C-alpha cells in the first residue's frame, strides 16, 4: 500500500519584548542610525547585546557607528531560499561596521562571487519601508571608502521607540503518517474502523500506531472494531473554536468501540448535549465522500453496563 502523504504547514508569529538595548538598536534602524554597545573593556558590539558575551556584565552604554564597514567573511548563495532578504543571488556576509569591534550578519548585493573578497568595503542600503527590524537594512552593497570613523555616544532614545518585535515564520512539510496509521486511514475512507492487536498483551489499539505502548513491541495483526461503541466519558464544549463550523455547546467524548481496548475521541450529535451520558451507545456517521466519521450518534440501544467499560475510562 503506498504511503499516504499530505501537505502540512506550520505558521507562527512570535511577539517578543525587545528590552532596552535591542529596542534602541532596532528603533535606530528605522531612523537610519546604527547603534552598538560598549563593553567595560571598551569594545563596541554591533549588533548590541544586553549582556557581555564574555563576562555576562550588563551593558547599557550605546554608541553610534558608521553605515560603512569591512567584510570579515562571506559566502556566495546562488539560489536564494524563501524569505531570505534578496530574491536574486547574493552573498551572506559578516560585516564589521566602522567603529565596531564585532561583526553583523547580513546579505550583500553583488554581481557574483568574483566580486567578493574578505576585507572588501561595503555600506548599508536602507529599506524603503522600515519597521524597526533587522530587515530595515535591505542589504549591504560594495562601496569604496576609508574606515576612519569615530564612534559617538548615543542616548538610544528616539521619538517612537519600537519595543516589540513580531517574528512570523512559516515552515512547509509533507506529512506522512507511517504504516499503521496509513492502514487505519485507508480503511476509514472505506467506512471501516481497524485497530491492531498486540501479540503480547492481546490488547486492540485504535487508532493503531504500529506499537503497543505498554509492551513496547510492534503490532501488525489488524482487527476490525465497532462500528458501534460506548461513551466512556465526555465533556461539554461551550467555546467556539476559530474556523470551526459547529454550534456550541456540543459534546466531545471518549468512545470505546466494540472490540477495542482503548477509547478514541469523537463528537456526539443527534441528541441534546445535556442528555449525553456515560454508557450511551453510539455509532459513527459518515457524510458523503468523507474519509472519516463526521460525528457519532446514539444507536438507540440500551445503555451499556458500567462494568462493561469501566476498564477503558
Amino acid at each position, binding site marked *: 500500500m503506498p*504511503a499516504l*502523504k499530505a501537505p*502540512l504547514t506550520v505558521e507562527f508569529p*512570535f511577539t*517578543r519584548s*525587545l528590552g532596552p538595548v*535591542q529596542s534602541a538598536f532596532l528603533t535606530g534602524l528605522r531612523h537610519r542610525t546604527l547603534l552598538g554597545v560598549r563593553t567595560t573593556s571598551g569594545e563596541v558590539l*554591533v*549588533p548590541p*547585546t544586553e549582556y557581555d*558575551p564574555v563576562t555576562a556584565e550588563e551593558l547599557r552604554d550605546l554608541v553610534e557607528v558608521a553605515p560603512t564597514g569591512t567584510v*570579515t*567573511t*562571506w*559566502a*556566495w*548563495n*546562488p539560489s536564494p*531560499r*524563501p*524569505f*531570505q532578504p534578496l530574491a536574486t543571488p547574493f552573498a*551572506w*556576509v*559578516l560585516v*564589521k561596521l566602522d567603529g565596531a569591534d*564585532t*561583526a*553583523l*550578519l*547580513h*546579505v550583500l548585493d553583488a554581481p557574483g*562571487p568574483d566580486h567578493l573578497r*574578505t576585507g572588501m568595503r561595503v555600506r548599508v542600503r536602507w529599506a524603503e519601508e522600515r519597521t524597526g*527590524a*533587522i*530587515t530595515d537594512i535591505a542589504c549591504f552593497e560594495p562601496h569604496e571608502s576609508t574606515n576612519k570613523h569615530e564612534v559617538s555616544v548615543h542616548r538610544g532614545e528616539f521619538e517612537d521607540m519600537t519595543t516589540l*518585535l513580531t*517574528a512570523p*515564520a512559516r*515552515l512547509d*512539510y*509533507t*506529512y*506522512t*503518517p*507511517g*504504516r*499503521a*496509521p496509513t492502514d487505519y486511514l485507508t480503511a476509514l475512507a472505506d467506512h471501516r474502523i481497524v485497530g491492531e492487536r498486540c501479540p503480547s498483551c492481546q490488547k486492540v489499539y485504535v487508532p493503531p*500506531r*504500529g*506499537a*503497543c*505502548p*505498554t*509492551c*513496547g*513491541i*510492534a503490532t501488525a495483526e489488524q482487527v476490525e472494531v465497532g462500528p458501534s461503541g460506548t461513551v466512556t466519558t465526555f465533556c461539554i464544549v461551550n467555546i467556539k473554536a476559530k474556523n470551526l463550523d459547529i454550534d456550541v455547546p456540543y459534546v466531545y467524548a471518549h468512545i470505546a468501540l466494540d472490540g477495542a481496548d482503548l477509547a478514541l475521541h469523537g463528537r456526539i450529535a443527534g441528541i441534546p448535549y445535556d442528555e449525553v451520558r456515560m454508557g450511551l451507545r453510539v455509532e459513527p456517521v459518515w457524510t458523503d465522500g468523507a474519509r472519516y466519521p463526521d460525528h457519532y450518534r446514539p444507536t438507540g440501544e440500551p445503555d451499556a453496563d458500567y462494568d462493561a467499560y469501566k476498564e477503558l475510562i
Partner: protein
Amino acid sequence: MPPTPARPVRDVAVVAFAQTDHRRRTDELSEVEMLMPVLHQVLDETGLRTSDIGFTCSGSSDYLAGRAFSFTMALDGVGAWPPISESHVEMDGAWALYEAWVKILTGEADTALVYAYGKSSPGSVRDVLTRQLDPYYLAPLWPDSVSLAALQAQALIDAGDTDERALASVASRSRADARANAHAQVKGEVPSGDYLVHPLRTTDCPPVSDGAAAVILAAGDRARELCSRPAWIRGIDHRIEAHSLGVRDLTDSPSTRLAAERAGAYEVRLDTAELHAPFTSQEVVLRKALGLGDDITVNPSGGALAANPIMAAGLLRIGEAAARIHRGESDAALAHATSGPCLQQNLVAVLEGDPR
C-alpha cells in the same frame, strides 16, 4: 593551567549500540516505527527488558517533522508500563546520553537506555534550522545552515587553515570509509558537486537523512555482565559559546577544546576520534581545536558526511566510537557531538576499553 578533569565517581560504560540504515526518506514509517527496531536491538544485545532499565532518556526535535510533542509518541516503542523513569532533551541524543550518565553517577540508576531519532524528510532542514537562531537579529533573515557553514569555511580558507582541495579530500575520505559502514547513506566515490553555497560544494555538505540510534549504558560489574568489552566513559563535558556569530572566531572551537580537557581527552592515548562534523570545513576546525595528529583515525564510520540524521548524528558518534572498542578495534576513543550554527555547542566524551 589547564583544568584537571575530575575522575567520575562510578565506572559507567556504553555496553550496546544500534542504529537504523540511514535513508533520504522513510515515508512508509512513522517515527516510532523507524525507532522501534533499534530499541529492540540494543535490548536484545544485552538481554535486558524495558523493566530492567533504570533510566530512559531521548533526544529529538519537533521542528524536524513539524509535530508537537512527537517524543511522547516515540515512547510507545519503549513500553512505559509498569511506569518507567524517563526524560527527554530537545537536543541531539548525545546530550540525552550525558543526562543518563549523570543519572547513573548519582547512583539513582545502574543502567540507562538512550535513544535519538530524526526524521528530516518531511520538511526542508535548511529552512527549519533557521528557527533555532537568535529571533531578533538572525532568524528574520532566514540564514540557512549551509550558508552559515559556508561563512565559517571561507573564514578558514582566508586564515590559511584549509583550501577547497583539502576540503574535498575530507569529503572523499569520509565517503570512502563509509563503504565499510552498512548503515551509511552516502558512500564510495561521489563526484565533486556544484557550489551549494560558495565555498561549499554539495560534497562538502551532509546528506539529509532519516534515522535513529540507541545505546545502553551500565555501571561497574553490571556493564561487565552485559558486554564482553565495555566502552568505559572516562569523562564527558559539554560547553557552549556566544550565540552571535560575529563575536566568535569561526576558525577555532574553544568550547570543544575546553570540553575535551574536562573530559580527560589529553590524559589518554587516543587512537580514534568520531567527530560530529556535518561539513568538511568543520572537521578542519575540530582537528585543530583538539590537536589531533595523523596517528588518530578520524571518523572511520564515515561520520556525518555519510549519514546525518539530525538529533541522532551526535549520539551516533558516541555509539560508533564505543562499538569500535567493543570490537577491539580501538582502546581509547574520543567522541564529539555538536549543536547550533557553526559548532556553537560541543560535547566531548572519552571512551576506553579494558587493557588487552
